[in-house]
């Protein structure tokens, strides 16, 4: 009876609508979850992220790669091209190591197949380009691509340094506001649920 009355009173005074308005009002003055990429912030992916490939080097500064071409064989997209040669130390190394990123699906099989721990997929994901020929990455460029970084899964400060392609430089400062937002949202959900039962 009482709940029925409450239902009627609610209907007359638009309580459900007022509830909705209160909720959106709260959101209007709450913290936003927008990441201001690329102007101010940028997402640093977790270290498990499969991004741009890079070639690892050993202590002497040579590539680990022994040009066995296993990665080229296993690649489902046939986007790796390896041509072996013998360097001045008598080691088998690649003279050509091209990856066509426009065809790569970032499956990571090349990383798994490699017997010499030479190739890996790093955390660089800004590969956008106006020209597909930029996406054909050669051996010497692959050496310079930064490898995996430890502080994955955070938002770091960043700045757009030029507009030809995306070149975003990291600046100082780490942010973890997004963790707080998620935490709060889950709390709010719990509150809603308890409120209704």
């Amino acid at each position, binding site marked *: 009876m009482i709940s029925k009355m409450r239902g009627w009173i609610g209907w007359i005074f638009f309580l459900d*609508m007022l509830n*909705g*308005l209160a909720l*959106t009002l709260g959101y*209007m003055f709450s913290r*936003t*979850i*927008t990441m201001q990429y690329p102007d101010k912030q940028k997402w640093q992916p977790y270290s498990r992220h499969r991004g741009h490939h890079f070639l690892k080097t050993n202590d002497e500064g040579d590539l680990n790669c022994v040009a066995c071409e296993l990665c080229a064989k296993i690649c489902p997209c046939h986007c790796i091209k390896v041509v072996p040669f013998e360097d001045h130390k008598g080691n088998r190394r690649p003279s050509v190591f091209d990856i066509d990123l426009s065809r790569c699906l970032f499956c990571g099989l090349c990383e798994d197949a490699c017997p010499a721990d030479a190739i890996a997929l790093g955390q660089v994901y800004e590969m956008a380009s106006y020209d597909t020929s930029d996406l054909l990455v050669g051996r010497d460029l692959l050496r310079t691509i930064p490898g995996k970084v430890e502080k994955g899964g955070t938002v770091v400060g960043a700045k757009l340094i030029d507009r030809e392609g995306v070149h975003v430089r990291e600046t100082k400062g780490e942010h973890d506001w997004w963790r707080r937002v998620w935490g709060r949202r889950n709390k709010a959900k719990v509150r809603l649920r308890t409120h209704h039962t």
Partner: protein
Amino acid sequence: METLFAISVMVIKMAVVIGVLLALPLPLTWMERKIAAHIQQRLGPMRVGWHGLLQPLADALKLMVKEDHIPEKADRLLFTMAPIIALVPPFVVFVAIPFGDTVTIFGTPVTLYLTDMNVALLFILGVAGIEVVGLILAGWASNSKYALLGSLRTCAQLISYEIPMGFAVIGVIMLAGSMSLVDIVNAQSGWWNIVYQPVGFFVFFVAALAEAQRIPFDLPEAEGDLGAGFHTEYSGMRFAFFMISEYIIMVLMSVLMVILFFGGWHASLIPLPGSLIFLLKVCFLIWVFMWFRFTFPRYRYDQLMSIGWKVLLPLSLANILISGMFFA
């Protein structure tokens, strides 16, 4: 000399009103996008200018250089006329709207309105109704099913909501004993009308939402089922005309609500200049309109009709009856 002075004051006032009205949609689109964004926990435009303040200018520029497309099967004359017919009435209406009381500039009293018509309310409701003709023509001339359905809905919606809106203001007219907006505002120097006329305000507010075609009553341009409603086929500046007209109508409805129910430029407690108070109140109501837009879903068409005819109309009639018995 006297007449020349009066005429020049008039011309200046007109220029100011038209200029402000033409420029107003720019900040309003920015405001709308920001409010939408923050309700959805986003930031909205941030990159053009400080906090995206120049975004509307960029949008306006984009609309100006966009292709002005007229569909092949469209009725060219009506198609080009429609946006202008939709644009002009909202501007004309502001002739009758007072923005403040008399102020003294350089020793001469200047009224902050163009005219103080004795039938201002009637004039406003009548002229604002003409805007619909533009929308109907737009839908008809586009020769597109979405546009036609959109304008049919506009038509039906505005017919069903103009009536309760007209009735809702009758209570206010009874209280003031005049249809002149200046008299109505001056009658509220004590208590605002919303105290005596909460039901009238409610009816007027809902009808104003429908009139301005805002959510939850934006069926004429329900993007889910109609593309963009009556302006589906419009692009470039013609589309911008419809947008401007829509924003001006929203401003008009807020202004009318402030004048009719919120005491116009009277504020008993806050010591600020009258026009500023008026502006703040209008801004607040516009904000409420936008807040509603991003909170509620849209009503179904039959719900829209039954709210109009079965709820608002009886409510407004009862309101007339009660105000007639107790106040007049």
